[in-house]
């Protein structure tokens, strides 16, 4: 028969490809740090009104640090020196801008080019930045457990807990590991451990939550968080995560004062400034995300790096 309407013959009625209204997110570690005591107790202050972006954090040996010494009747008691030290941290500006043209905004079919989407991104990006900064600190503690080129085991996890306990680190502890390390520990717990561990309800619950990044649960009383931001050690042979208690990591941020009469700027959750920047002449609109944050190693003894095969 003739004159069939075929796909190949209606070029003027079709397009080469259609754009899906649903999209896939590119792979990235989007998990934020948990609101964990080991992190929250390391928060020093909001730098608004501090007078400097650099904060010196004193370490003081008090409240039971020095024991009483033996005295004698009628004899003057000698002075006990007050032990002290300090860490320094600098609060710096972290920001980014997405700027798009009016044409893009007009043609957008995905629904991404919208202020509310960028507002959510602002808070998420700030959380990811903070997580990244912390992950780059946990690899550097003086105490270490694990062996180069050897998979992480449950014994390494226990050794880290013991190390921190001996150092009198205040609990709860938080373990920040690369997913390779966490996977090795869970495999060891599931396949190579005895009944005391294998049949522990906490371990079993953790085994059920093995997939995906972020907070995994509690393993032997210590919280576990996995992130791809954990750096390498020994020239890439190993991953260097860590476990720490309160005071090992200290941090500070700053509340950015906004002009309340200006509807183009607002402070979102987590003290993130979100601001709309309009360029009418060029026909573009930018959305700025900004946060002030600084993070440093505090008391080195309150952390233990877990360095095992990558």
């Amino acid at each position, binding site marked *: 028969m003739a004159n069939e309407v075929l796909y190949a013959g209606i070029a003027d009625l079709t397009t080469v490809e259609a754009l899906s209204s649903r999209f896939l997110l590119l792979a990235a570690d989007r998990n934020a740090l948990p609101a964990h005591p080991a992190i929250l107790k390391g928060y020093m202050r909001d730098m608004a009104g501090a007078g400097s972006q*650099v904060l010196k954090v004193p370490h003081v040996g008090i409240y039971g640090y020095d024991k009483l010494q033996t005295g004698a009747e009628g004899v003057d008691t000698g002075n006990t020196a007050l032990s002290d030290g300090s860490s320094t941290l*600098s609060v710096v500006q972290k920001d980014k801008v997405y700027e798009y043209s009016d044409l893009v905004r007009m043609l957008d079919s995905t629904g991404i080019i919208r202020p509310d989407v960028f507002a959510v991104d602002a808070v998420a990006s700030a959380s990811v930045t903070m997580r990244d900064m912390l992950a780059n*600190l946990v690899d*550097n503690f*003086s105490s270490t457990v694990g062996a180069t080129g050897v998979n992480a085991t449950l014994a390494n996890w226990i050794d880290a807990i013991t190390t921190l306990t001996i150092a009198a680190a205040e609990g709860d502890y938080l373990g920040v590991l690369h997913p390779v390390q966490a996977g090795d520990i869970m495999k060891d717990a599931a396949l*190579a451990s005895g009944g005391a561990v294998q049949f522990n309800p906490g371990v079993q619950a953790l085994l059920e939550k093995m997939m995906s990044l972020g907070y995994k649960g509690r393993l032997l009383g210590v919280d576990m968080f996995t992130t791809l931001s954990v750096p390498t050690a020994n*020239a890439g042979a190993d991953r260097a995560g860590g476990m720490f208690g309160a005071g090992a990591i200290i941090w500070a941020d700053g509340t950015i004062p906004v002009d309340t009469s200006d509807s183009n700027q607002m402070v979102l959750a987590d003290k993130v400034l979100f601001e709309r920047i309009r360029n009418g002449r060029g026909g573009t609109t930018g959305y700025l995300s900004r946060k002030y944050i600084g993070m440093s*190693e505090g008391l080195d003894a309150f952390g233990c790096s877990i360095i095992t095969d990558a």
Partner: protein
Amino acid sequence: MTIDSYERDTEIAEGGAFVPFEGPTSRGGAPVTKVDACPPFLQTFNPKRWTVMGGRVIPLLGRIPFMSGVNGATAIIDRTTGAEKAVQPSMARGMAEEKGHIIIPFNEIPDSHARMHGQDLANKSYLWKPRGRPDVTLSIYTKCYPGDTTLDCDEKHYLEWIEYLQDRGIIPTPPAYVLRRMLAKMEQERDDLADKARAKPSLAPLLERAEADVRAVQAELEKVEGTRREAPPAPDTGTAFTPDAEPEPTPTPRKPR
């Protein structure tokens, strides 16, 4: 058909051959590595951190990451473009040195290693950046591959570098007390592993590795203690201490009659 010669057409404009860079999406272009982003860093030596690699006891080097906001590092920003021009880690360096860490300068690598990533001897560095990934900085002893997330250690050259640093006196060799502590811990771990390996033969390679590590630490300890025995005794810089003997009892004053 064979083209033997070509006479240039003098009417056309002058120019040169050009091949545009098609990037990693073309069939001909090599894909860029897909490792996670990592900032530049300074390597540091911490006297408390040691490990065993390739049958040798080596320091477990730390890092000072060049990330603004981490350990007090700040950034210099290009005010016209907003791009980060440099990161100043001076506060981080100061804190590390205060803790007794030794910072290893970037250019402290053997000349032969400078050629690993096409560096010239005037600008040696133990860092390199894979092409197409300005957000990735790796040690020159870290290998990455096109289109892949895998990272590997160039163990042979890494150990050569550690030996080079120790020979030049930039970082020390492990002290005896550290080796003794490592040995005690590793022997215990080896023994525990040996018990498990009896019931689980698949643990045999792991046990072999643990035994090799113990032998490495023992050899290093014998070398250090042997060196200590040969060296003349260090001058006495302290004095012996014994607790004070019990003092004579103070005579009780007599009451006047």
